[in-house]
């Protein structure tokens, strides 16, 4: 079945099973492989995309639910806050293997867009994505550095 979806500002039409999760449409039909598979059950966060700016697990989100909503993947993150988060990520040298970082960056961007001065609790509650390399304290540091960069 044909679906048209808006990803990173561009419209795409794909012909797929209506139940195909957005994750696999992005990766296989649109060639956007920055969004990853990690668990298939919305726990690990590596499949996180922004749907109308909200972090969403794309591995359990059927293509037929997308409709007109605006999808942002890591490849299309170009908001001011998003660019600042990426800059902070490099400053703090957050990434190790890199596999989880697209999801982390999108979640952090959403957090800071809505909560410019998050508390540690805000960060704990927003940043639920797993990182098996254990970069959590640098994710926290990255968020705090981004806050400072945004304020300046």
């Amino acid at each position, binding site marked *: 079945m044909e679906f048209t979806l808006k990803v990173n500002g561009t419209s795409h039409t794909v012909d797929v099973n209506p139940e*195909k999760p957005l994750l696999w449409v992005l990766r296989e039909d649109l060639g956007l*492989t920055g969004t990853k598979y990690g*668990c298939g059950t919305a726990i690990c966060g590596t499949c996180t995309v922004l749907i109308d700016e909200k972090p969403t697990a794309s591995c359990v989100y059927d293509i037929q639910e997308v409709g007109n909503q605006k999808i942002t993947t890591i490849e299309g993150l170009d908001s001011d806050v998003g660019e600042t988060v990426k800059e902070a990520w490099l400053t703090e040298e957050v*990434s190790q293997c890199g596999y989880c970082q697209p999801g982390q960056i999108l979640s952090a961007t959403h957090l800071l867009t809505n909560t410019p001065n998050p508390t540690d609790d805000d960060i704990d509650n927003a940043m639920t994505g*797993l990182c*098996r390399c254990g970069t959590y*304290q640098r994710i926290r540091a990255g968020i705090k550095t981004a806050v400072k960069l945004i304020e300046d």
Partner: protein
Amino acid sequence: MNITMKRRTFIKTTILGLTGLTLGCTEQESDSVPAVSHELGLWLNIDEDSKITVVVVRTEMGQGVTTSLPMIVAEELEANWEDVGFKVMAELGDYGESMTSGSRTIREHYEKMRGIGATAKEMLIQAAANRWQVDPGTLTAENSTVTHPSMGSLRYGELVEEAALLPVPEDPQLKDPSQFKIIGTSVPRLDSPEHIEGTSTFSTDIVVPDMLYAAVAQSPVFGGDVSNFDALSLDPAVGTIVKITSGIAVVARSYWEAEKALASLDVEFEHPPEMEALDNAAITAQLEAGVELEGAVFQAVGDVDEALDNADDTFTQTYEVPYLAHSPLEPPSCIAQVTSTSCELWVATQAASYALEAAVSVTGLDPSAVTIHSTLVGGAFGRKGEWDFVTLAVEIAKSMPGTPVNVIWSRKEDIQHDFYRPAFMAKFSGAIKDGQVTGWKGTNAGPSIMSRFMPGISPDFMSTLNFKPPYGIPAIKSSSVNVDIGVPVGFWRSIGASQNVFFIESFVDALADQLDQDPLAFRKSLLAGNERAVTVLETVADMANWGAPGVSGAAHGVSFADTNDSLVAQIAEVSVDKNNTENPVTVHKVYCAIDCGLAVHPNTIKAQIEGAVIYGLTAALVGQIDIEGGRVKQSNYHDYRALTLKDSPDVEVEIITGGTGIGGVGESGVPLIAPAVANAIFSLTGEQVTKLPINRFLLS
């Protein structure tokens, strides 16, 4: 590339004794291969614009080798760091063995990489000397430029074509480390930008034209297989069923379709009936029997039986740890394409040479017919040094010659078909006389990892890794018993140290308690004379303000290990609340001092220790693979829990350098956290944690 076959042959035999093959280009690099570039041996490529590419022969799995190895080359090469990039090794064979493991990349490559940089620098200087007709001794090299006081300067890019033709210096001069400008600095990691932008490619991200996808299901019970394969069928429009070793695969146009089709099949498995009796209780019983045996004695100092006989007091304790899965976020995956004459793999592997052997084994092809593209790895921790996922991918691809197949393991498949960190038990007896420990007897028992590679090995050197107490005790006897249980076992970050440091450091605290001594002071007394070790302990004690936890009601616990040629000590600040059944243990902060001799990229060392502590802490608090009816019970991150940001303490790291050796880092932070936390809990509650994981023990 402008290199003639003759010159390649010349380089082949002279550059540091390495033989030559053409440098290939990986998928990621093909956009950036310059029009004209020259190889200086296998390792280094410099183009006309003086852009320098270092071939990295170890797997990048987050530990930063794609930055640290080029740093070492760039230092001796006198390169402008801004112009340095990396390329992942594309071809096997001429770079030596390819396994990335054992925290040994820097230890094994430091001198070699220095030599490569220094060799190339001297050839570039000689090329300038030839062009200017001056003595090379009058030239200086700095920032990718060779300069003469009056002749001017030439960039490396202008010299490299001539340099590549020159004789290779046999004995290049290395820099004095006091002159280092790059080594020892935390330059921005070369791989970070692509991860941030989401453009980094792991094996599943690669697109090969006409590629299909596959999902696999192996027998859930170990040793089993599909029993009704011939009865299964699928609409060809939906997918193709393929028989694989111990299981079944479905190939489809999309991974999700493959998984869905696989789930729709009524697959029946059969297994050896005796496997049904294999469960946690049976495993514990086998380990308990094992530690009562003498086993293979691998350390005998003094007369420990005499010490135990003559002791004022003896103290005995037994500790147990479970099987652990690796569960890296990127599951095992491999793209394979097989024809009658070739096999090509794109794979996130720690061991391209094992992937090669697997491909040869399945296809029967000559190794020269196999091409391996080794990609970035989304977390490995030892899992991706195995080749089982390669074998299955090649089997699937072999069933449809010419079609590339992207095989992705589901999370469930990953957790239930691992090569687990072995379940282990250790029993210790300590002899105490006149307020001293006069004897130490320890036996550990568990499955042997190395038996897979070296049948009959006893003791298994992975089982004994770090089981010798690193302390001055007059009589010691250490032995190890192989217990063959039937669950596949393999290399989990820090391997034998992962259980043995918990065992040793827990018993040390038990003895300190028997002697009513402070655990840190006790360790220092047992390490008297080992200045490096005492320094590491004193450093971490200062960092933590040992004995005075910042959080009210918390306690400190300490651990020490000599691992991978590094000396490491950790202190954890811990609180316990058994009423909190989700998280009865709170680790407020972890402090780690590591003497690793040399710090090529200090920030990466810190990051590796930080991450290793979290990896080890996850295992310590909640890590358990339960075996029931001969199969793994856990299946995803909901029941094989990984700590989240909320659960994770900050880790403060101090790096001690200046020694004459180099210590490994990648695994070295892992094994100390379990005993540091357990020892803190002992201090708080008066009861030792004798069985991991800690949460389960405290709540039982």
